[in-house]
């Protein structure tokens, strides 16, 4: 009987461990990542038709910087901090680096966009688009999707 229980536990373990993504989220963070990616996709489509004004783009870049900072601050590579602590994103070392780089780069981009002389409107819109693409990639990482899946 003990062996049977052990085997059943191992079977359950296989089902649980199989298919875990390198970037996982829990609680409200799941909806945040999904919502931000959905909004980012609609912004990409919108910009393609009607570019943002400079002021809109600066506001959006600032909002993106806050979003990337929130992700980076919520992440951990420590499973216990994720399961029992206040961290809501569990990542591999590689994804942790990606989130840290995105945080710094988005801060720099937002700051550069607001400095005089301001970059061109094309630059602002391109920056917004590229940041949005990364927000979508973060959602894909959470969902375990590769490019084009």
């Amino acid at each position, binding site marked *: 009987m003990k*062996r049977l229980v052990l085997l059943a536990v191992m079977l359950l373990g296989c089902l649980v461990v199989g298919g875990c993504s390198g970037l996982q989220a829990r609680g409200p963070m799941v909806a945040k990542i999904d919502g931000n990616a959905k909004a980012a996709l609609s912004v990409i489509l919108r910009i393609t038709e009607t570019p943002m004004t400079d002021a809109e783009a600066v506001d959006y870049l600032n909002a993106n910087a806050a979003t990337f900072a929130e992700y980076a601050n919520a992440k951990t590579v420590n499973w216990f901090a994720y399961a029992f602590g206040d961290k809501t994103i569990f990542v591999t070392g590689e994804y942790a680096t990606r989130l840290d780089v995105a945080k710094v780069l988005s801060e720099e981009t937002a700051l550069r966009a607001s400095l005089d002389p301001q970059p061109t409107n094309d630059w602002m819109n391109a920056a917004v688009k590229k940041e949005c693409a990364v927000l979508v990639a973060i959602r894909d990482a959470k969902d375990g999707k*590769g490019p084009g899946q």
Partner: protein
Amino acid sequence: MNLQELKDKLPDALKPLADQYGPTIITMTTAELQSWLNYVFVGRYTEAYALYLKAAGNEVYLSEWDQEYAKWQTDNQANADQIAMSNKIALALCQVMLGIILACVGL
């Protein structure tokens, strides 16, 4: 001064930073570098940082975002491949264990 000369003058611990910030710093004029140092000495770090960002040139950010996006795509592909492999292994193990369990209970 070129980037290699700059790196040669730095201690080993700072050499990785030279790769990141060096290309911009060596393009800054003497006046810009003096202003940067003045800002740092009086604790006006935001202005110092802004001066560096202006010197970096606008296109740097866009190309860095392109590189970053490419890295996300590569990592996501690896992640998806790993999940697919884990699922295959888990499924194979489950099939074997299910057989054993069924044999144990006499089915």
